[in-house]
């Protein structure tokens, strides 16, 4: 099993959700995130004092999938989140030892 995590532009969330549903994903977790990559932050100015704001708002999308599905899910996120501009984000995949469904107590791929 794999955990696919995507950090994306907040305004692409709807497209990413639609693409994941089309790819057969049943559930996702979405949270607000902030950070920066190569684009760094932006500047704001208050009464003449210029502040560099490092952290840019992003959305984190997490999906638990089987190992076979992982590349397809990654491609779906990339396809929907990509705008071609700097700051589009990252997607990464990590191995997951176990998954349990809380309601039934099932373990492993059945719990996905």
């Amino acid at each position, binding site marked *: 099993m794999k955990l696919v995590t995507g950090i994306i532009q907040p305004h692409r969330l709807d497209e990413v959700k639609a693409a994941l549903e089309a790819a057969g994903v049943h559930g996702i977790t979405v949270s607000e995130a902030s950070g920066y990559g190569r684009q760094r932050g932006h500047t704001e*100015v*208050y*009464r*003449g*004092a*210029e*502040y*560099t*704001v490092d952290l840019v708002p992003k959305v984190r999308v997490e999906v638990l999938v089987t190992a076979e599905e992982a590349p397809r899910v990654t491609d779906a996120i990339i396809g929907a989140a990509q705008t071609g501009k700097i700051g589009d984000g990252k997607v990464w995949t990590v191995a997951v030892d176990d998954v349990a469904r809380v309601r039934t107590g099932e373990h492993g791929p059945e719990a996905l």
Partner: protein
Amino acid sequence: MAMSEFALDSGNTAWMLTASALVLLMTPGLAFFYGGMVRTKSVLNMMMMSFGALGLVGVIWVLWGYSAAFGTQGNAFVGNPFQYFGLVGLTDQNSIMAASGVPALVAVVFQATFAIITVALISGSIADRTKFSAWMVFSGIWLTIVYVPIAHMVWGGGFESPTGWVAQHISAPIDFAGGTVVHINAGAAGLALALLLGVRKGFGKEPMRPHNLPFVMLGAALLWFGWFGFNAGSEFAADGVAGRAWLNTMVATCMAMLTWLATEKIRDGHATSLGAASGVVAGLVAITPAASSVDSFGAIAIGGIAGVLCALAIGLKYKFGYDDSLDVVGVHLVGGITGTLLIGFFATHHQSAWYPDGASDGLLYGGGFKQLGAQAVAAVIAVTYSFVVTILIGLAIKKTMGLRTSEEVEVSGVDLAIHGETAYETIGSRATMEVNA
């Protein structure tokens, strides 16, 4: 001073009752203006400094403040605090609004609202790091030995009044609604306290972003609304001079907002909402002493000049390294001095404008340098007296109870440590309940 007959004027009285309520609203307005400019961890403390001053000054004013500022037994510098202690013995005939037919108790409330906001204004320079207990002690002492004497000197028949020394030797200084008494006074005191307290941890290095700019805009709007009572109410009557003050309060403020925004656009590349709110206050401050005594061109010029000068002056704290957190110096001291001195250029008694007997037209209206000289003297007295005495009060508090919170409290936030509250519910904060009753 005492008149033999008091003839009630219901029109003037109705206006002064209204104006008092307008000016009182400025202090909660200021709480929003200042509160929005600090970070989430200290917004309640910032607003509480205004509300705390409101409570304390309101009571002191009734007990001895009015008597010492506006009683009839004063010398050139201060009145007698015991003459009308608790307002006992104060009659309609011997109040400062007797000539307008306004009852004495209305005069007391109107002047109380000025004393309250002057104290509250100072709190902007000491954000995020001051003990609330020290602030309250400071407020009571400062009101009594700084505000009251200056109000007496300028408005209570003292040294700078139309019958005082300056009027007899140079020209009568003009301070219609509080350029020296309120704004220079609060600005100089703010500078003194900021110097005594020292800079906040991270000042000039870490960003200290205003946490709620809509609050700042709301506060500026409430201040402007209340300021019509402040300036036009200072006529003590509902008449043409009040109308002149009202008009000038509108147009000077509009102009100051525009010139502040233009200055920012050129210097920083953006016309900001914080700049608009700040420009509004700078214009209001500058027109305050001049409201009755300049024509429409004078008002537009004073507002325009104040908007530029204050927008530039807020950078001084970074240059000189004092942490005037919310720019009491840059806006109130500089704006107050600007308005006070520009009267020396623009004063006129034409077009419903008015000034007291013994004052003269300004430099640009054919009156020569006399009025400018009187205005400069008034400004210097206010700056010097307020700064020196505030330093002494601040030092006394610093040596005894202490002025400043611990670094730990400052970093974690004064709201929680001092007031036992946080302004906003944030995700994941869980609470259990216990009732103390």
